[in-house]
């Protein structure tokens, strides 16, 4: 795992919240050893949580300290030695020193104003960056939930669709016995889509082309490349089709089907 990937994965935060799985914990420990810079990141996370926990502070009962001390052993106190600061020799040149001191105070004051200004700016930038990152996560969270719901409902959705749609199964020809594809269309809304279940690999410069046979005439119903997936068609000249077929044609499709390259075909049940 890369450094940035780890930072964005949420693992460092889970680590601090004590909710990593043992495998994740190992991974974080490993990354911490490899990248000491992560320690600062982790430290900030820990401090944030510690400060949050501190908000729940409660003064313990007065007798608790005594109860704890009774269970502990202490070392005898060492004697303390106090140090007196050395007196500086200030007898000579006091005027010059005073003047230099005043000058340096002015310089230092100026510098610290400038420094303070830059630090404030830096903090501002960092704060807004954090806010942005947090927003990004919020969005990905929402997306995550939406796709979760979508997946759950997808199976149901397809069932509903199948009731309203007429479906035609196209089976593989002798050359492509494993090929399979389904065409769905809604006679009311005139929506048509193709569910590609299994199609052969295409050679360079080739495409699949779907044909509908209407009154004995093949009509182009669109080209596609995918070997599996769902395809929505815009060409609706399929409403009165009696038969569907897919051929392999040169990229862009042909005006009439190359029958030798037919992959799948299926009749519409009446």
């Amino acid at each position: 795992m890369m450094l940035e990937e780890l930072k964005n994965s949420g693992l460092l935060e889970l680590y601090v919240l004590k909710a990593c799985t043992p495998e994740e914990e190992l991974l974080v420990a490993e990354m911490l050893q490899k990248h000491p810079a992560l320690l600062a990141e982790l430290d900030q996370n820990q401090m944030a949580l510690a400060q949050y926990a501190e908000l729940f502070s409660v003064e313990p009962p007065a007798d608790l300290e005594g109860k704890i001390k009774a269970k502990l052993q202490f070392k005898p106190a060492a004697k303390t030695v106090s140090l007196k600061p050395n007196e500086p020799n200030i007898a000579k040149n006091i005027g010059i020193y005073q003047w230099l001191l005043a000058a340096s105070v002015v310089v230092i004051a100026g510098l610290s104003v400038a420094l303070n200004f830059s630090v404030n700016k830096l903090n501002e930038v960092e704060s807004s960056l954090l806010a942005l990152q947090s927003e990004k996560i919020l969005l990905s969270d929402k997306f995550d939930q939406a796709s979760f719901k979508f997946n759950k409902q997808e199976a149901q959705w397809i069932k509903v669709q199948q009731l309203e749609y007429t479906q035609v199964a196209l089976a593989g020809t002798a050359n492509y016995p494993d090929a399979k594809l389904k065409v769905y269309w809604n006679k009311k809304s005139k929506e048509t889509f193709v569910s590609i279940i299994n199609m052969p690999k295409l050679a360079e410069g080739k495409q699949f082309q779907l044909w509908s046979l209407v009154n004995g005439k093949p009509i182009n119903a669109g080209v596609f490349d995918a070997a599996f997936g769902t395809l929505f068609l815009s060409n609706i000249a399929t409403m009165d089709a009696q038969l569907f077929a897919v051929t392999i044609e040169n990229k862009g499709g042909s005006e009439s089907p190359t029958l030798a390259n037919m992959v799948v075909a299926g009749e519409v049940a009446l």
Partner: protein
Amino acid sequence: MKRQIISEQELIKILRTGEESAFDVLYRNYAPAIFGLILNIVKNREQAEEITQDSFVKIWNNFSTYSESKGRVYTWMLNIARNLAIDFIRSKQERMSQKNQDLEISVYQIDQQGQSNIPVDEIGLKNLVGELSVDQKVIIEKMYFQGYSQSEISEELEIPLGTVKTRARQAIMKLRFVFGLNSKGGEG
């Protein structure tokens, strides 16, 4: 008892002396945070007092195993307290489920006992409560204060694991933002 401001390095230095006065400083500075944390987890004053005692004994006796490379001493202490408290509620839940009680019910019962937990810094807490979303608060509560695993949360809240992860990240980032902790390290 007033909390005095003491740097990590100073605290480590005096704790290494093993003197009684060092314990006084330690206790004065950290007892409310540790007791509050434990109380928030076990939701019972008597049990919280017991576990606070165990935590300080463990912190004091095991201080020789602490090293700066493990992170801040404050975090190290909070972890000791948090782990003891979580171990306690977990074994309590096990005892209860052995009595044919559903885990969910026992968690619910523990929640019901938690009415006495009134935070000292109530104003700060209220302000922060406004900053964190409900989802973020729930994630922190379940993970840090109740010791739930990711999959337990995913199941209980009926959200995918990926969402549990992003919410955890979001919650910590929000806390960092609220407490003004930037990404460069330092006290912020």
